[in-house]
């Protein structure tokens, strides 16, 4: 998995602004990476 798709933050329930900022930032970064191309399953094949 590319760096950036998984992020951890510590946000207290009192830190609403931080929560909004982090969510916006993570969403933007993941969007920039585009759809995940790894770990996709395909329908089983028929030999």
């Amino acid at each position, binding site marked *: 998995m590319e760096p950036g798709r998984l992020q951890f933050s510590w946000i207290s329930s009192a830190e609403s602004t931080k929560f909004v900022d982090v969510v916006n930032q993570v969403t933007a970064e993941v969007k920039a990476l585009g759809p995940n191309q790894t770990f996709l*399953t395909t*329908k*089983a*094949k*028929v*030999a």
Partner: protein
Amino acid sequence: MKIVKIDKKTWAAGIEKLTASYRLFGPVKEGDFHNFKELGSGEAPDLDCLNTRLSAKAIIYPQSENMFEYSLDESREDHHILKEVDTDYSPRAVIGIRPCDAKAFELVGLNFDTSEYKDPYWIKAREATTLIGLACSSPGSNCFCTTAGCGPFHEDGLDALVVDTGDHFLAKILTEKGEQLFAAAGWKQEAKAAGKQIEALKQEAEAKIASSVNTDNLSALDTTQLYNASFWEDVSFSCINCGTCTFVCPTCWCFDIQDETHGNSGVRMRNWDSCMYPLFTLHGTGHNPRGTKLHRVRQRFMHKLKYYVDKYDAGIQCVGCGRCVRSCPVNIDIRRVCELMNSFDSEKDTCAA
């Protein structure tokens, strides 16, 4: 029965010609092992391999196979209704299959092709397949085919048997399908008198089989007494209940059926399953009739060496290819278990082995 001589120089060209009318499969070396693969153009089967790591069963009976497809999209007329999938059943040929693997298809056929029910996936694939066997002139040390109802030159299940004489190949054409394939390859130089030579090579090869099993007593044994024999604890102790033995075995046929949905569409597929797994027999209630590894190990050997013997009267459900012996992570050896079973004496509950 016709015998054809193939000049080794014309072998590759013949194989190349076959690609026009067949999908070809054959043993190919991958890393340290050989395996059956669909051959690409210009790719030749590697006839130098002792035997493949996995058997040829996946060519007819893939590890994962789609059975039906469906849509869950309710705007479609046919939503939630299963439809058969398109499967390529065009002619395919396996070049260089060993006689044990070919014979295994005959044993497995007794399960999939019955008078009451016919498994269409297995039967159509089997019918589409021509099997060109390669006789074993130097069998492996764990091969015990000659006492498992098979042999290094065994012909059951094959459409033709190719024998490497050193400077050329001799091929016994055994069926109509074999005839057609040889015509398509352009191999037609008859060698009428070569029967004797093949017979001599066959005896030479059979004499090289150093390993054996005794099965003469199995059908006479009482099922429940054998089931309750005390040796199962010893046999099963080391088993880790992986599926290796069942997956490498050419005669193991058990499967699971699963639905897999992606978005609004999906497939009903079947996957190889194994009697070694607890999940195989687990009831919805949590009850498991084969809840311990002793149960499961016993099931595998009882199935192959007793139930099958009694049910079909066609010998044991084993062709002696030796794969499970070589691949078992903890070295549980079917030859040893067979001996324990065959020499079982309920009076003493001890075994000669």
